[in-house]
């Protein structure tokens, strides 16, 4: 796939995703479809799709124990065992997986501070590529925080953890100058981080030739969707305000299975919602399903214990010699080489019977 076609194709699809609710709600006033049917449908597709996907993965067994070992194996008591990087039991695996999922441990290996002397001044430098880990962390955590913050729309009373998150997230607002004439609510740092990180991830894909070379439309599309979600969200919160109580009413209705769409919610909200729904429904069919896949990855979620605990292959649990014709047995081997073995003084199982013609030779 060449990158321009890929980029344009996914951009067009993303624009369609933008236009559909705009026209659907803004012009055709299809509130029920975009406020009720689409969200339910998206969640349904997501749940069923994801379950099917995980079942599909799970159906394929793990025949061999193949963890990538990134540290010293467990051996003698006097050799320090690297119990996280090369886990011998589930405790190590849990910590390793936690580091992988929460800190992107493997990706972090790419990060390397470089001390260089530039015009005789020592300088600490990051390579452009090495920002990948930081962007990934910023992106995923911002996403998580924003997701959690949205709980205020589905819950009553709002749980305290949501409030705490909001407080922390808005902590830096003092530093942001309000634009005169506009009443700006608290600025959430994660809103900015998310948009910055997604923009970085997109630019990186376009800027680094190796990455551009391997990119597919399915790499750009989710980024466009998330960019769309972020932008509409930010617009709604800071500029094109929508009636939050009504949005909450809609969300509550959806959650209690008594859905109804209150009047007076701006079109922008439906665009935002449609972006979210598209993303959710798209997940099971896309690479974003890595969020479930990582937990199943056999190079990470297995302990390196196959030297002391047998790993069983469910579709082949018999040694090779129990299948006919699979191995060249010792008997066949001796049969072929018996004479030379005897001559060389290598013990054999079966001494050959003395043949008639051999006798005169021996008498000589």
């Amino acid at each position, binding site marked *: 796939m060449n990158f321009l076609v890929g980029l344009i194709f996914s951009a067009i699809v993303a624009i369609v995703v933008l236009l559909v609710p705009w026209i659907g709600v803004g012009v055709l006033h299809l509130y029920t479809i975009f406020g009720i049917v689409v969200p339910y449908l998206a969640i349904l597709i997501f749940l069923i799709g994801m379950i099917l996907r995980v079942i599909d993965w799970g159906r394929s067994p793990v025949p061999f*124990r193949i963890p990538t070992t990134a540290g010293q194996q467990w051996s003698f008591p006097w050799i320090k065992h690297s119990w996280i990087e090369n886990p011998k039991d589930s405790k190590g695996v849990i910590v390793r997986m936690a580091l992988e999922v929460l800190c992107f441990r*493997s990706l972090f290996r790419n990060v390397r501070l470089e001390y260089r002397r530039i015009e005789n001044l020592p300088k600490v430098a990051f390579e452009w590529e090495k920002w990948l880990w930081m962007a990934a962390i910023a992106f995923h955590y911002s996403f998580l925080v924003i997701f959690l913050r949205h709980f205020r729309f589905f819950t009553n009373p709002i749980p305290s953890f949501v409030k705490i998150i909001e407080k922390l997230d808005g902590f830096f607002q003092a530093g942001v100058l309000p634009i005169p004439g506009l009443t700006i609510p608290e600025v959430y740092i994660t809103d900015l981080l998310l948009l910055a990180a997604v923009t970085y991830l997109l630019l990186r894909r376009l800027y680094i030739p190796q990455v551009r070379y391997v990119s597919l439309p399915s790499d750009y599309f989710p980024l466009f969707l998330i960019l769309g979600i972020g932008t509409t969200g930010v617009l709604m919160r800071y500029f094109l305000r929508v009636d939050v109580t009504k949005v909450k009413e809609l969300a509550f209705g959806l959650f209690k299975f008594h859905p109804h769409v209150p009047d007076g919610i701006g079109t922008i909200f439906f665009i935002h919602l449609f972006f979210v729904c598209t993303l959710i429904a798209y997940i099971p069919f896309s690479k974003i399903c890595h969020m479930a896949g990582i937990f199943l990855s056999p190079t990470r979620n297995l302990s390196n214990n*196959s030297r002391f605990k047998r790993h069983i292959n469910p579709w082949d649990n018999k040694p090779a010699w129990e299948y006919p014709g699979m191995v060249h047995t010792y008997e066949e081997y001796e049969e072929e080489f018996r004479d030379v073995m005897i001559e060389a003084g290598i013990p054999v199982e079966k001494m050959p019977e003395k043949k008639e013609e051999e006798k005169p030779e021996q008498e000589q």
Partner: protein
Amino acid sequence: MRPKNVPEPEELSKIDHKPPLFESWMDKKPEFKPGFYCYGAKAKNIAAVGMPNPRDWSPTDEDWKLPENWKEIFLNGMKERLEKYRSFKLFMDICVRCGACADKCHYFIGSGDPKNMPVLRAELLRSVYRKYFTTGGKLFGKLAGARELTFDVLKEIWYYLYQCSECRRCSLFCPYGIDTAEITILGRELTNLLGLNTDWIQASVANCYRTGNHIGLQPHAYKDMIEFLCDECEEVTGIRPQPQFNKKGAEILFVTPSGDVFADPGTYTCMGYLLLFHYLQEEYGFDITWSTYASEGGNFGYFTSHEMAKRLHAKIYMEAKRLGVKWILGGECGHMWRLLNQYIDTFNGPPDYLEEPVSPITGTKFEHAKGHKIVHIVEFTADLIRHNKLKLDPSRNDHLVLTFHDSCNPARGMGFFEEPRYVIKSVCRNFYEMPSNTIREQTFCCGSGAGLNAGENMELRMRGGLPRANAVKYVHEKYGVNMMACICAIDRAALPVLMQYWVPEVDITGVHELVGNALVFKNEKKRTTDLRGNPFVGAEEEQGDAV
């Protein structure tokens, strides 16, 4: 008529690469360049182990003599493997093409060929997967990164599958643990359904199957070869080891890659084993046997298919059972140890006819090996040294300035880092590590692993080994390193060649060669040279004085 292999006139002038703005990797046809691929497997070697489509063929042939329904065979094989290996299925689905692996492959680093980026190497196969096994790929084709399996696509997949040494360096950096080695192994299985192995691998497979070792040594020749090495030991040390062969009732079975037995410098490592066993026999009544039947620890089947690997390595357990030994000692070998660690018990276990390994000399229980009942000789020696069971004179290695190359498989398929370093530091006094991003779990491949150690693909090997050689060159220039130790037979075969091209001042040794140098026997003759016949530091002057 222009001769073949001469550039077109426009290629001679400024090399102008079309920017790939309008070009996709999918549109590029594979071009087989001499030096970057190995010869095709010969009919007799394919037939010898009953694998499909035996015929003589060459990768540069127009016609690969494939069965008519080759596409069906390939795709059915893929389907079967998707259902049997979660790794395969998952790795086909979850790559996000973040590019973290791109610059981790030694073949990419050394060649600059973008299709050597692990992500793209896998995409070659993934694109076919999408076309035939995903809805998106079926519907949207190229837009979903899917493409038809054509003969050109097959050729491309083949070309790059046999340019991967299954070293797993990329899998270390992948946020989802996608392991290109796993994809290469399964991809190669698919090519083998069509009879598309390289002869270097296939001939070794056929030999291992019939004679037990990859060069095809018959039992008496194998024994003679080792006897010959005993003679060499005697010449240097005045001690002649007395190895036992196929001895029933021996306590331990020893299995090592057969490369150690016939190819320099592996032979010196083998002399190290022989001397060590003899020392232990004399001092402690150690009872170990070699086997001519299970005379190959390395497993060329692993470069072919899981099934072939299982079939070949079965001999180790079968022989241990037949001889009635208590447990198995394994020699210094790379992929052999990945297999012994991660596969053999699953393949051919449980070996409940063996006992849990205990060192007869120190009494140490090798608890971590109690399942598969195989101990690495470096662990075994490390334990002996730790318990002061060996009399060692490290000054005998003073003429060497050492560094250590972590072989890919023991590094990333086992985690075997400290034991070899402990042994080396006990028998040598000059040891320097290479830079940290080139050793241990981040080690660079020798460039010749996974069956790529043939002669015809020398250019591929040299450029693939450049990152390793470059780090060696650094320690050579900085610390005067003149010898690199390793614990892998393919390393011992491949690295000397690599060094001769890039850093001719550095040679290669196995760890047990160093042990053999340092080991002090009670009744040895006055030793003036190491096992290779190179004089010890100070030995020359002494000799001069004596005269």
